[in-house]
Structure formats: C-alpha cells, structure tokens
C-alpha cells in the first residue's frame, strides 16, 4: 500500500504562479505536471502540479478552461510539461516562451486535433504536411550546424540532435525527440488495471520492473490492495537486479565509447549473464510479466536464491576491479573528468532526478525521499558526488551497484513466508485517484492514475525520468567537443522510448 504523504491544495491559477517562487525558495522541486480533462465530471480541465523535496509530495490543483498560466519562467523544468499539455489537450499555457509542437509533429498532424481530450472522436488526420517545425538558429561568421538522426549509426533508438559549432566547441545543441511517440497514455484509457500493467511494461523495456512497481504503487492504492510481505521482498529483489544489470551495461558503454573494448566486452558478458539469470528466474530475459496486480508472478526457491547470490557476488568482484582501473588509469580519467559537466544550479533548475541529480550533488533518490515497498526499513543513504561530469556519473553507478548488492543480500535469506499474490476483486471507488513512484536506474518514475466509474482507467499520466533529464544534455555539452557527445549521452543513458511514450 502506498506510504507517500500527499498534501493536496486547490488553488487559483494566478495565486499558484505567485506562490511558485516561495515554493522554490523553500527547497521544493517540480516532480511533474499532469493535466486531465474532467469536463464530464465538473465541466473543467484541471492541471495538477506535483512537488517533492519536503518529505512528502505536495499537489497543487489548478482549474483551467482553455488556458492556464505558464510557470516556465519561474521554473524552467515546467517548460516541457506545458508544451506537452498544449499539444495533447490544446490548453494554452499563457506566457510560455516556446510553444512549438512537441510530440504531434506538424509534418503529419493537424494541430487543431488534441487526442487526450475526452471528446476527441478518434479521427486521425490524413498523413500529410500541415506545417513546419522551426529549429533555433545561431547565426554568425564561421558558425555551422551538424545534424544527427533521427536514425543513428548504431543499434540505438531514434532522436534528432542539432549542433551549432564554431570550430570545435559546441555553442548550442537542440534536441528534437518524440519520434517514437506511441500515445501510451491514451491507449491505457478504458483498460482495466491488469491490461494496463502489460502496456506499462512496454514503456521502457530495460526498466520495466521498476516502472511497473511505480504503477502498482498507484494502482494498488486505488484498488485498496495490501500485498504480502513476501511479495514486497521479491519485488525489491527483482528491482535491484534490474538496476544492477542496467548499471553494468551503462558502465560497459562508457568503456566502449572511450575505445576500451576489452573491459567493455567483459561487462557486456556480465550483463548477458544477468539476462540469463532473469530468464532462469522468470522465464523472460527482461523479467517481463513477473509482477502482477496484487503481488508477483514468480516465487524464489532456494536454488533461485542461490543463483542470485552467486550473481551479485560475481558482479561485485568484477566491478571492484573495474573501479580500481578507472581510478588509476590516466587515459580513462582524461576522457571522463570535466566532460559533460552539469552544474548543481542547472540540475536544480531542471528538477533532475536519479544518477544525473546525485552526480551533481542533489540528494534525490525516490527510495529514500518517497519510500515504497520495504525501502523505508533499509536505512539507505543517497550516494552523492559533486563533480557533475561523466566521471561522477560513472563512479556513482559503480557505487550504486554495491548498494544494490547489499540490499539484495540482506533480503535473500530473510524472505518472509507467505503467499506471493493476493486476490484483487475490489472494484475501485469511482473517480478516485492516486500517485505512485519508484526509482528506476535512470531516476524517479512517477504515475498519476484516476479510475472511472467502471473500474477502468480514466486518466493515466506517467512521467519518465528521461523526460526530465533529456533537456539537461543541452547544457552538459556546451563547450565540449562534438566527439565527446556520445560519451556524455551514454553517461546519462536516457531512454528514448520512455521519454517519447
């Protein structure tokens, strides 16, 4: 059951904007903005702002007709959320500095059609050009542009990057994402909670367990389900396993991008061993479908527990060598240190989360700030670094692997007895809503879910950590050379599919 303290405030749009300065000054930071079309209920749209930073989560609910006041100038992190709302709901964030379409491309979408409105008639505009997307331009003598993507050279997801350069250093980077926009939030509407779980697993496949945990926190709180302690333990073990293999892969890619194929391939082999462990545990290499509403789908017997123990011991041994190598090799340090620096102030203004925030000295870890499952009993401390560069993010990943290993070992042989799942026949209260969150290997995954009067999803808003963090690369690369961009990108290792949704 959800343990987050949610303080709700109903407030007028202009009052809210006036108080936003004070909110920021008191150390609160924006977790996300969720709009919802509730005209069928109370003839209003509403926009909910969620803030973290004070122990619990503060919710500010603002009514909106066809527009609401933009808070982008006070809180730059709000910029992307407001553009998203303008696209999908057609609500105008008045005073917003940049209202270019975000996910509904003018190249193929009629801007008067807003698919997340409840009166959207499911008519899909013809596939033709409706307008043009204008990129920012830097003009001047000797300035040139380098265009990359959407289809990249390697086996990666699509995204468009536009660099403006004068000589070697990057003057500006503009990212255009949402090539993979699948309209997941709309797809979930009208589905029941179990069907939605299947869709949620496909938001970002490599983090599906942790994302599903965030979803289940909200869903089980709406359905009033208390899962068993054994199921909570198993969820945490699976979540930490997923975190470990993600971090192993991330560190491997760092080595790959600085031309150290030997350690990289060793870590890739280690990742493969974890994928095989996953397969052994759940029958699926990514642990798809191992969680369910009301518990988990797999039990851990003594053979499986032993396999997990051996795997985490092995990973610690290899990662220890790896850490020593990074810290003692001048060629590695030369590439990693001072590259892609994201300042503390930038991280704060953009409301970063996860490794990217912790590497810039911000103690943000949802497992500690908004504890869920049994994380509040684990006495975790945020692992921090103040470098803000590629080196800081790499070292933090390594340190977090040790933390995850310790968590898993602490739980493995203390698994409480009990069922792994409870029945969930409860019908949710009509139009009840809840929030849920979890810490993925990239950062905080945040869900806002409202049920309708049939026990189906009325509105589901998901905020991926990548959605928050992507804009920060545009600051991280400034002054760096373009050849370091892949390294900076990999050091954040963000999801395109989670961002684009």
């Amino acid at each position: 059951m959800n343990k987050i303290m949610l303080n709700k405030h109903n407030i007028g749009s202009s009052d809210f904007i006036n108080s936003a300065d004070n909110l920021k000054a008191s150390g609160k930071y924006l977790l996300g903005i969720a709009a919802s079309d509730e005209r069928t209920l109370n003839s209003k749209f509403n926009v909910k702002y969620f803030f973290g930073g004070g122990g619990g989560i503060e919710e500010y609910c603002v009514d909106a007709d066809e527009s609401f006041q933009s808070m982008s100038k006070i809180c730059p992190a709000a910029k992307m959320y407001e553009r998203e709302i303008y696209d999908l709901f057609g609500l105008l964030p008045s005073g917003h500095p940049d209202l270019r379409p975000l996910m509904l491309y003018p190249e193929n979408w009629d801007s008067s059609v807003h698919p997340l409105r409840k009166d959207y008639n499911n008519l899909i505009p013809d596939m033709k050009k409706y307008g043009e997307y204008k990129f920012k331009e830097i003009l001047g003598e000797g300035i040139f542009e380098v265009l990359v993507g959407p289809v990249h050279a390697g086996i990666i997801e699509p995204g468009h990057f536009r660099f403006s350069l004068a000589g070697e250093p990057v003057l500006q980077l503009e990212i255009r994402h949402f090539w993979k926009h699948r309209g997941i939030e709309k797809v979930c509407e009208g589905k029941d909670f179990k069907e939605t779980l299947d869709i949620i697993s496909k938001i970002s496949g490599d983090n599906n367990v942790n994302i599903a945990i965030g979803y289940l926190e909200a869903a089980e709180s709406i359905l009033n389900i208390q899962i068993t302690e054994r199921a909570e333990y198993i969820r945490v073990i699976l979540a930490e396993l997923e975190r470990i293999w993600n971090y192993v892969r991330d560190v491997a890619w760092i080595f790959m991008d600085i031309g150290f194929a030997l350690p990289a391939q060793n870590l890739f082999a280690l990742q493969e061993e974890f994928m095989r462990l996953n397969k052994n545990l759940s029958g699926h290499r990514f642990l798809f479908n191992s969680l369910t509403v009301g518990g988990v789908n797999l039990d851990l017997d003594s053979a499986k527990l032993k396999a997990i123990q051996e795997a985490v011991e092995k990973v610690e041994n290899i990662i220890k060598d790896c850490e020593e190598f990074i810290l003692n090799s001048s060629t590695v340090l030369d590439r990693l240190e001072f590259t892609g620096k994201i300042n503390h102030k930038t991280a704060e203004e953009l409301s970063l989360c996860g490794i990217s925030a912790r590497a810039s000295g911000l103690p943000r870890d949802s497992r500690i700030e908004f504890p869920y499952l049994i994380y509040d009993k684990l006495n975790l401390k945020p692992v921090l670094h103040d470098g803000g560069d590629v080196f800081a993010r790499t070292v933090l990943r390594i340190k977090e692997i040790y933390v995850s290993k310790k968590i898993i070992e602490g739980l493995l042989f203390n698994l409480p007895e009990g069922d792994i799942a409870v029945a969930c026949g409860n019908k949710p209260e009509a139009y009840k809503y809840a929030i849920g969150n979890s810490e993925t290997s990239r950062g905080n995954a945040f869900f806002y879910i409202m049920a309708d009067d049939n026990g189906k999803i009325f509105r589901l808003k998901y905020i991926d950590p990548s959605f928050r963090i992507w804009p920060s690369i545009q600051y991280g690369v400034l002054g760096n050379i373009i050849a370091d961009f892949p390294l900076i990108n990999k050091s954040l290792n963000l999801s395109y599919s989670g961002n684009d949704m």
Partner: protein
Amino acid sequence: MSFLSKLLFKNKTQEIGAAGIGSILIKGEELKRSINGVFGRSLFVRLVDSGSCNACENELAALSNPYYDLERFGIKFVASPKHADVLIITGCVTRNMLNPMLKTYENIPSPKFVITAGDCPETGGPFKDSYSVCGPVSKYLNVALHINGCPPEPETIISGFLKFMDMLKAS
C-alpha cells in the same frame, strides 16, 4: 593496472565458450557457410527502430557481446543504409517514424530485404489502435521474414537469420 592485466591473462571469452553455448556455435557456423555461399561475402544489416520499447534494441545489441559475437559468423550491423543488404525493423511504426523508416529503406541499394523483429512491427502490439501508430510494417514494405518474440532472444534472432538464408537459397 590490475583490471586490465587480469583480463589479459585470464581470457574470459574462452571461459565463456567452454561454458556450453554449443548450439550458437553450430548455428553460427552454418550461417557463415550459408552467407558465404549466397553472397560470397558478409551480410550487412541496418537497423531502424520505428517505435519499440528498447528491449528489442537491447537484444540486437546483445548479439555483439562475447557470448554471441555475431560478426564472426559474417553478419555486421552497419552505420549507413547505403552499405546494407538487409533492413531490420523493430517497433510498431509511429506516425513520426514512418518517413525516416521509408527513407532509410529507399537508401539501401537493391537487392534489399526487410526483416522485422519483435511482435510490434508485425501486429502493432498493444499500441495498434493508438492515434499515433500507423503500422504494421507490411502495410508499407515487403517483409521477407518476421522474427517473433517480445523481444526475440539473441538465439532466436540467429535462427531467424538462418531461416532467411534458407529462403534466399530456395528462391
């Protein structure tokens, strides 16, 4: 330098090879013979992700790890479509990715083949009714082979390539 020297003196890939992945070696060798027989050179592959959940990309990337090391069997993922023989498509084909996908296809010199990997490009997966999805791939391109799975495991993808080569030999 302990990490590097440990790796150099204790060759991990050999250890991995000995740990029993016979079926991959057998399939791989067969694949290599087959590719050499039909193409007389390696098979070059270009990937386009048209809207996947990134699990398929993870599995395709895993084909390069020391357990599979697909390049030794004569299959190489290339950076440019101009170098490719085969286009692998993953994902459910979003409206935004339709054009880049078709442009990539146009830029592959003939003869060219399309292979789809994962359940999404074949059916659209759970997203088939979405406003921003316009798949499946077969609506736009001639698909030579489909590799099933959500996502297909690396060994399944290798078997898929084998099947593809058999199809070419038969035609």
